[in-house]
């Protein structure tokens, strides 16, 4: 076994994503199916308008959260597969040397599908647990007929089982693609120097200091981390602010759910990205320290580059949620009465920004502490 069940615990972030995505989608889709079954009973024009608004709203929620999270989970999964292929490249090389094909050598990566399956299953169950409350709030004005919760096995198939299989297959295939190189390059201990050479022949206009160069090359060669940093702040910004507005526009429950999902996603991706920023660079840190670079210089080179991206992600999330709610209120719900006009909530934005800043700087602070703990002895452990 190149990767085993124990390694899947490292993929908690992916499980959390799967949980959130399946949780939201199960709730909305189940509601759509159930209310679709009684749509003939909806007769009054007001109720009809509300019904169609509800439908578009839940479709939007499902495709946005489901789609966004699925893509992010896939990116994250590829990130982990790459991490483990690099970590276990010697074992993988030995398998290849023994005559295993790339695909056979990669089979054990299928186990990563389990983390998706577990997260999705948990999200599915959680959705059914919250559903009674959700059904009530969806119809709090009593305009729509009261409906009972039905269990739909097809949802279990589409939201839990198939995603599990898909992600297992994705892990195996991506791992086997990463193994498509000569056995010898896997076996040689060339972890740090003979990886794929990233050509960064940039214009050498300004003479930057070494730490600035390192920061630049880190951003260019570790795009996945930049993506996660942006995604984290984007989620945090969009979802917390949306949650505040939801409290006013729709229901406390929806607001709370969105807040919870947003904060969870933001935290897991932020932790993942920031710990990878340090964990993937321990040899570099040890070498810099051996040469006499201070902890602060290591931190500047390895962590500070992400800050502008994170805060840009926050700004992006703010704009995104503003547009989304504007569209929801003015287009989707335009025929429904009692929906107040949506205005940009400055107070919410400020509170959200402050909370994000605290969270982000805390994560960076923890990473800085980890950098301080990296011992120069790392370079002697071979």
């Amino acid at each position, binding site marked *: 076994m190149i990767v085993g069940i124990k390694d899947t615990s490292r993929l908690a972030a992916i499980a959390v994503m799967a949980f959130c995505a399946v949780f939201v989608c199960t709730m909305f889709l189940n509601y759509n199916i159930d209310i679709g079954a009684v749509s003939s009973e909806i007769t009054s024009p007001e109720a009809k308008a509300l019904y169609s608004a509800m439908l578009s709203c839940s479709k939007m929620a499902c495709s946005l959260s489901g789609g966004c999270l699925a893509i992010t989970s896939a990116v994250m999964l590829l990130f982990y597969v790459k991490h483990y292929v690099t970590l276990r490249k010697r074992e993988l090389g030995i398998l290849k040397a023994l005559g295993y094909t790339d695909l056979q050598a990669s089979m054990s990566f299928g186990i990563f599908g389990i983390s998706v399956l577990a997260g999705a299953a948990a999200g599915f169950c959680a959705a059914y647990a919250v559903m009674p409350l959700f059904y009530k709030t969806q119809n709090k004005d009593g305009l729509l007929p009261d409906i009972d919760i039905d269990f739909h096995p097809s949802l279990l198939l589409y939201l839990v089982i198939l995603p599990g299989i898909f992600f297992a297959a994705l892990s195996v295939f991506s791992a086997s693609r990463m193994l498509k190189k000569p056995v010898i390059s896997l076996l040689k201990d060339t972890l740090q*120097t003979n990886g794929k050479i990233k050509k960064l022949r940039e214009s050498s206009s300004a003479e930057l*200091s*070494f*730490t600035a160069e390192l920061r630049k090359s880190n951003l260019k060669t570790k795009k996945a981390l930049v993506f996660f940093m942006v995604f984290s702040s984007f989620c945090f910004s969009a979802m917390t602010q949306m949650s505040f507005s939801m409290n006013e526009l729709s229901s406390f429950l929806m607001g709370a759910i969105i807040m919870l999902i947003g904060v969870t996603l933001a935290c897991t991706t932020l932790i993942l990205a920031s710990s990878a920023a340090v964990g993937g660079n321990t040899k570099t840190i040890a070498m810099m320290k051996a040469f*006499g670079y201070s902890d602060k210089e290591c931190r500047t080179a390895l962590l500070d580059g992400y800050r502008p991206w994170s805060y840009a992600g926050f700004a992006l999330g703010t704009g995104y949620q503003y547009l989304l709610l504007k569209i929801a209120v003015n287009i989707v719900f335009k025929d429904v009465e009692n929906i107040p006009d949506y205005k940009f909530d400055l107070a919410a934005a400020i509170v959200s920004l402050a909370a994000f800043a605290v969270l982000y700087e805390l994560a960076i602070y923890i990473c800085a502490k980890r950098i301080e703990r990296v011992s120069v002895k790392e370079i002697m452990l071979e």
Partner: protein
Amino acid sequence: MIDIVNASKFYGTGQSRFQALKSVSLKLKKGGFYVVTGASGSGKSTLLNIASGLERPDDGNIIYSETDIAGLTDKELTQFRRKHTGFIFQQYYLLPNLNVDKNVKMGADLAGNKNYREVIKAVGLEDKLQKYPGELSGGQQQRVSIARALAKKPEILFLDEPTGALDEQTGRQILDYISTLQREYGFTVVMVTHNLNIAQMADTVVKMNSGKITEIYSNSEKKTAYEIGW
């Protein structure tokens, strides 16, 4: 220049506690070329790591121009290494995503050395400035690591098995660069190797066995990298 006094180092705890260095004393003089040899596991690297401020001894003193670096904090040790030492390791440890020029800059910046390209030229890599470590042979990578260490203008250069991963011909070339550059720049060299032949290049040879220095002698006549056996 460095005075190692009764230095001991232990690894592990309890049952598996193991003394890698047993009260070792050694005086290293400015401008000397020291080679530390001995069997694998005899404590050579441990001695080098302690003398260079990479690690602290558990007991004893390391006096460097009147300061005992054994008593410094991690931060102070880092400052010490920044000011005084250069390192070359068997595994090169170049940064893979930076080209040769920028890898050498890692050392140069610490000394505010603007003319670091001279050192790259001195190791014969002036036409490889834009290459990445993965595009270079082992010998070329080790030359980059020499340039990186020397660009820092160290007073003492510490080398742990610098030719350990290289073939004979490349190994000789590396050693030749080191001794030539030492004459040019005048730094002190402390080199660890299990290859006894390399000892013939040294002013002073330190032999170790199971954590102790068993013999220290001076060569009346130094040989060049191309004259020694391999």
